[in-house]
């Protein structure tokens, strides 16, 4: 045989041996060396992990009325690991049903972070669409209708600032709360109680393992791991009374302002109304991009909680602080009259400072001066007290500092101090500033909640209660896991004599303006401000001898606080009739 080449036959044998060895080597590489990884890939190939959303805890008022709960909703997920293509009949039909373009659907599928994760095509689908999709694509493993929950606030705007709202977690929060198992796209509280007690409210999401196939038909061939059941969040019971809250919000009406009704002894807040309001439901489910712009540009600032997040000059209500400083330091005797009686104005150097009553009040004691809110009297008290002592007394009343209420976004406010004045004006600061400060004008800014705390100390004999909205928290089984107790910020240390004089003055306000059926003590305020008409204040508590409720009212540009005393009386009436805080109200005074 001439044709056979021994060398070629041998080299061929060697060659096929090498090819076989390469193939075997590749098999070893894939199956033995990297087998584990490919096994995982095969698993994630056929199983999609779909979140079972844990229901967020309810928020309830003190009577158990629902303030926030969950409403079922449906999301549409795309499950396959391949990308769908335009012109795919499924995509075409889906685009029709969802009313979006095929390109948009394909884009959403392409944009998911990993092919082994489902892509959300639509969230919070209306029920008729859900029915249509499940009827048409029921046997398709490409699509999955994910039952989900969206936050629902059945009372819409009522108590919106207390409740807050929810939204998708941002990167910063994600970093901060990493150890809580928060993941991208999770829903967290963004404001209000939803924010403060988010860790209690949020449950632990479960996981459902859904077998998928790359084709249309669902195949039940392999076992999938059983679902990890979600753990619902805890329910938050607030001290708020929904009816009272609604009543207070109606009292404010179309005005801008805040009304706080707080327990005088333990700081429980029964109502914390702020107007204007927003509907927190708009943040649940799909949030249109221009919503934020609309809200941010709204000059009425509906998102602002005026009770805690806005500071105002306290006006005449600050005279309570000025009076305290004078009496505690022995600078004014209880029955002392000032050098200059009130003729409607006060001359300081060559400047004239006016009393609100141009007719004047004549000669008054300090208690009467509180009742009549006489500026001229307090100008002179202020001159005796001076800025340092006024600052010291403000601090004892915890003004200019956050009260620590369990809501986010509280602001400090501002109290007058020499350092501040010197910083602003140098050593030649205007000495008349103390005159303004002593009647709560100038550089004094307080929040309504700070005033409520101040009044609570006058009511209960010196304890500055820490305001709180939470009553208790129950876990899904109903067991109490947290209970709010009475907390005191600090004690003012104001003497009983001083307190009595001030309360006499405050009771006089009520006697002066009409019948005092609730044994109420109050102080009005009309705070001048650069933005327009004066802001009106009315801070009060009742009954005097057995204090129960503190009510603070602030209306922006409401002119005189006195105008709204009857509103506060109506609020107290409401509380009496509805047993807030309980039914043990003393008899009304004729």
């Amino acid at each position, binding site marked *: *045989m*001439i*044709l*056979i*080449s021994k060398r*070629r*036959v041998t080299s*061929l*044998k060697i060659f*096929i*041996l090498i*090819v*076989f060895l*390469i*193939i*075997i080597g*590749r*098999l*070893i590489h*894939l*199956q*033995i060396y*990297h*087998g*584990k*990884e*490919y*096994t995982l*890939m*095969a*698993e994630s*190939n*056929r199983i999609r992990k779909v979140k079972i959303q844990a229901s967020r805890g309810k928020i309830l008022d003190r009577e158990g009325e629902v303030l926030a709960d969950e409403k079922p909703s449906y999301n549409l997920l795309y499950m396959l*690991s*391949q*990308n769908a293509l335009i012109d795919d009949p499924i995509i075409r039909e889906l685009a029709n049903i969802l009313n979006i373009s095929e390109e948009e659907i394909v884009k959403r599928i392409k944009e998911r972070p990993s*092919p082994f994760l489902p892509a959300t095509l639509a969230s919070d689908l209306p029920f008729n669409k859900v029915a249509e999709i499940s009827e048409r694509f029921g046997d398709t493993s490409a699509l999955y209708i994910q039952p989900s929950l969206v936050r629902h606030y059945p009372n819409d705007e009522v108590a919106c600032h207390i409740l807050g709202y929810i939204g998708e977690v941002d990167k910063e929060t994600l970093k901060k709360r990493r150890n809580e198992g928060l993941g991208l796209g999770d829903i967290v509280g963004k404001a209000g109680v939803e924010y403060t007690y988010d860790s209690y409210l949020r449950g632990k999401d479960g996981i459902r393992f859904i*077998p*998928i*196939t*790359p*084709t249309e038909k669902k*195949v039940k*061939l*392999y076992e999938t791991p059983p679902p990890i059941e979600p753990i619902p969040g805890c329910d938050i019971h607030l001290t708020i009374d929904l009816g009272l809250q609604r009543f207070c919000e109606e009292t404010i009406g179309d005005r801008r302002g805040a009304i706080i009704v707080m327990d005088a002894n333990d700081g429980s807040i029964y109502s914390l109304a702020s107007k204007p309001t927003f509907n927190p439901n708009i943040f649940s489910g799909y949030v249109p991009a221009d919503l934020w712009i609309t809200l941010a540009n709204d000059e009425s600032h509906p998102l602002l909680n005026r009770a805690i997040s806005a500071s105002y000059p306290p006006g005449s209500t600050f005279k309570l602080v000025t009076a305290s400083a004078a009496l505690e330091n022995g600078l004014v005797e209880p029955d002392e009259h000032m050098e200059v009686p009130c003729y409607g104005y006060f001359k300081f150097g060559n400047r004239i400072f006016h009393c609100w009553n141009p007719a004047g009040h004549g000669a008054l004691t300090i208690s009467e001066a509180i009742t009549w809110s006489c500026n001229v009297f307090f100008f002179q008290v202020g001159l005796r007290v001076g800025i340092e002592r006024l600052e010291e007394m403000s601090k004892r009343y915890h003004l200019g500092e956050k009260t620590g209420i369990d809501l986010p976004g509280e602001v400090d406010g501002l109290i007058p101090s020499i350092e501040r004045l010197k910083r602003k004006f140098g050593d030649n600061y205007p000495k008349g500033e103390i005159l303004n400060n002593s009647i709560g004008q100038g550089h004094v800014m307080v929040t309504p909640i700070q005033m409520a705390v101040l009044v609570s100390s006058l009511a209960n004999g010196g304890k500055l209660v820490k305001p709180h909205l939470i009553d208790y928290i129950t876990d899904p089984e109903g067991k109490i896991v947290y209970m709010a107790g009475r907390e005191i910020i600090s004690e003012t240390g104001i003497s009983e004599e001083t307190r009595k004089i001030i309360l006499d003055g405050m009771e006089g306000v009520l006697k002066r303006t009409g019948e005092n059926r609730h044994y109420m003590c109050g102080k009005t305020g009309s705070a001048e401000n650069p933005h327009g008409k004066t802001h009106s204040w009315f801070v009060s508590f009742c009954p005097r001898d057995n204090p129960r409720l503190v009510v603070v009212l602030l209306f922006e540009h409401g002119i005189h606080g006195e105008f709204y005393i009857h509103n506060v009386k109506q609020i107290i009436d409401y509380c009496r009739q509805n047993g807030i805080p309980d039914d043990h109200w003393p008899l009304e005074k004729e």
Partner: protein
Amino acid sequence: MIAIAIILSIGLLLIYSAVGGLSGSDSHYFLKQTVWVSLGIIAFILSVGIEPALWVKYAKYIYIASILLLVVIFPLRYVGLAGSRWIYIGGIAIQPSEFAKLSVIFILTRIFTRKRPYSIRNLIVPTILVLIPALIILKQPDFGTATIFPFILFFMIFWAKAPAYIVILLITIPSSLAFALLGYIKFAIFVFATFIIFYIFTLSRVKAFLLSAVNLLVGASTPFLWHLLKDYQKERLMTFLNPKADPLGSGYNVIQSVIAVGSGRIWGKGFMQGSQSQLRFLPHQRTDFIFSLLSEEWGFVGAFILLLLFYFILYRIIIFAQKTTVEEYYLLIGGVFAFISYQLFVNVCMSLGLLPVTGLPLPLVSYGGSSMIVTMFALGLPMSAEFRRRWL
């Protein structure tokens, strides 16, 4: 023969698994495959029984007939009697390209026994005869099957003890195609290197220069050839070069196949337990990717055993060729070796992500009647030669 029988039974089991058992909606494929296997065994017996030289004697007619079968697909498509690659006769589809492979082996054997491929001139006619079916099949379009024809030609030239420079030239031509795709500089280096190799083998600068010039020409024409490829073929080639560029698009098949293989690990997931194949993540698992199915369900052990059996068969074919004293048998067996080994290696390497995805079946295992019959018949030829050497 025993090895063939084992592979056939493994193949049947795999098809059984691939169609999801007898209750599956595709179970008719399994039943049909048992028919194909039986027909294949008959073809094998016939092939062993008949004098192989007979095929060589009538090679011209067989060749013409197979070309006619290939050509007739195109008009038949219009009357619905043919698909892209198949002719439908009475409910069964036959694939003429499979038979063309055999006819090319026969005709090349006939030519090379008469006119040895020892000069470039002698190669012209065989090349044309091989390119005719290859180009028709490329037009079908079936890129994978088309590539086997040049390979059979090359291998039989090598097998016929052609001078080294011819063999090297034939190796460099496809290589220059590849290098031309990679860029000018790499291609220039490649051409220079071939020049040196040619010079060493021929010791003639003129010859070496001419041969390099051929390579240069091939490289220069590459862009035009690239244009001739269908878009999906270009995509496949590019995908092979970088499969992760588009994991959900054109790279999907390769990735799913590699996942299937890798997840089989040592012992496999068990018969009919492969999630990749049973849930249809693995594409074409009856045909092109059946090796992946095997690797997934039977693991490294199963794949290794199958490869061992194939190695044994290929080795035996070489031994039979070595022992034969008839020139025609020797060449014939060489052609069969080229045919079987090329399909085996290309198919397996494709499943393992070592070669681009081309639709070539795994011999004796993949589903398909024409392929089964032709493969079994081809495997009968070396057996026939050996049988005749020993007992006749």
